């Protein structure tokens, strides 16, 4: 039996009628058609589905959509504002920190959460924040460089 669920995603409210066992990841992708969050392992191992739930990174594949009711959900589609990329996204473009791109949305969400709580992380802190995200192209170095390249005084208003 389907149930009514209201989700707040990227500032928008969505009233849905869904099966109670569907994951947040499946509902984001298949009902709301936000396909930026990727389904890699569907078991909480790869981090490709990382979204922010009330500001904290979680695996959307391990959350039932119904239990995310009324919580603030931020996906990769909500990172850019008014057509302008988030400084993290700009930095990834500039440093060429994207290879196949499949892990990129999840990694950006993990890093966004890191920078929200720690605007000037050390390399070790960046690595810890990204430890739950696998990049099978193994392009981690350029991602670290991208984060370290951010000029926080310039970009302060955009974070």
């Amino acid at each position, binding site marked *: 039996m389907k149930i009514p669920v209201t989700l707040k995603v990227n500032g928008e409210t969505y009233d849905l009628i869904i099966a109670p066992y569907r994951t947040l990841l499946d509902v984001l992708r298949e009902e709301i058609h936000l396909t930026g969050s990727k389904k890699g392992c569907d078991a909480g191992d790869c981090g490709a589905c*990382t979204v922010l739930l009330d500001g904290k990174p979680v695996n959307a594949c391990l959350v039932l959509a*119904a239990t995310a009711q009324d919580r603030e959900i931020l996906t990769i589609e909500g990172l850019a504002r008014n057509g302008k990329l988030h400084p993290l996204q700009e930095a990834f473009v500039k440093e060429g920190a994207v290879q196949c791109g499949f892990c990129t949305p999840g990694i950006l969400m993990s890093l966004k959460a890191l920078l929200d709580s720690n605007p000037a992380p050390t390399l070790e802190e960046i690595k810890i924040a990204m*430890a739950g995200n696998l990049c099978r192209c193994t392009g981690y170095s350029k991602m670290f460089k991208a984060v370290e390249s951010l000029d926080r005084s310039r970009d302060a208003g955009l974070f």
Partner: protein
Amino acid sequence: MRFELLQPGSLAEALEMKKDHRERAKILAGGTDLLVLLKDGKLKAQAVMSLGRLSELNFIRSEGERGVAIGALVSHSDVAASRIIQQRCPDLAEACAQVGAAQIQNLGTLGGNLCNASPAADAAPPLLLMDALLTLASARGERRVAIHDFFLGPRRTVLEPDEILQEIFVPQPVGRRGATYLKLGRRKAMEIAIVGVGVAIHLNGSDRIVSECRIAMSSVAPTPLRARRGEAIFANQEIRDELIEEAAEVAAEEASPISDVRATRGYRLDMIRVLCRRAAREALARARNHKAEGWR
């Protein structure tokens, strides 16, 4: 994965539902274990009861010199970030910071880690070292169970079909104590422990005499467990390297590890000895640095 979803709004409501549904309803806390098992088909559930709305089970409360009470639904990241926990049970904070990675720590709960009853549960060794007490609630009432009596085997606990883990109480140890939890994996994050070892050392006044030593291990037996014979080697002894070596040997004898995809039995036995020695030295160093007033 198909099931009916129950979402009680309070503990009282959850206990009534559990009384009615019993085994039929599996409890969902963080979901990092349950949903993976359900998706894999390793576990079947007609109903799943989410505890997500029970904010009353999400607390860390200092009870002064008695100890610390932790609600079953506190996330690993909240345990690891808590000043109270960092001060009073630093090894528990360390253990929770080594569960999976940020995404898993934000979802997974302390209570879920225990109720899932994995032999590799990271939170278990520190809580075994502290003689934690678990409050199990049901519509019939509450009972307190020592963590030593909680685990029955892999994925099996003493929880009755109508019970829910409500609170983990960590009694305050007396005197100068140092403790640590070491987890061995192939990498630092996203690992299930190959072997986990926690050691706590209590000093008796001087920096040299150990009044009590406690050793707890995970991933080396059907349940997390204490190495009581290894511990006894230290009792009221002046600490020496030979004692640490001997205790590590005896602790390995108390384990009954299996060979599986992560490691062989022999490797695990070797690593118990290594981790025991390292953890004992670190716990000793921490005990010597321990300032009693920091425990208030």
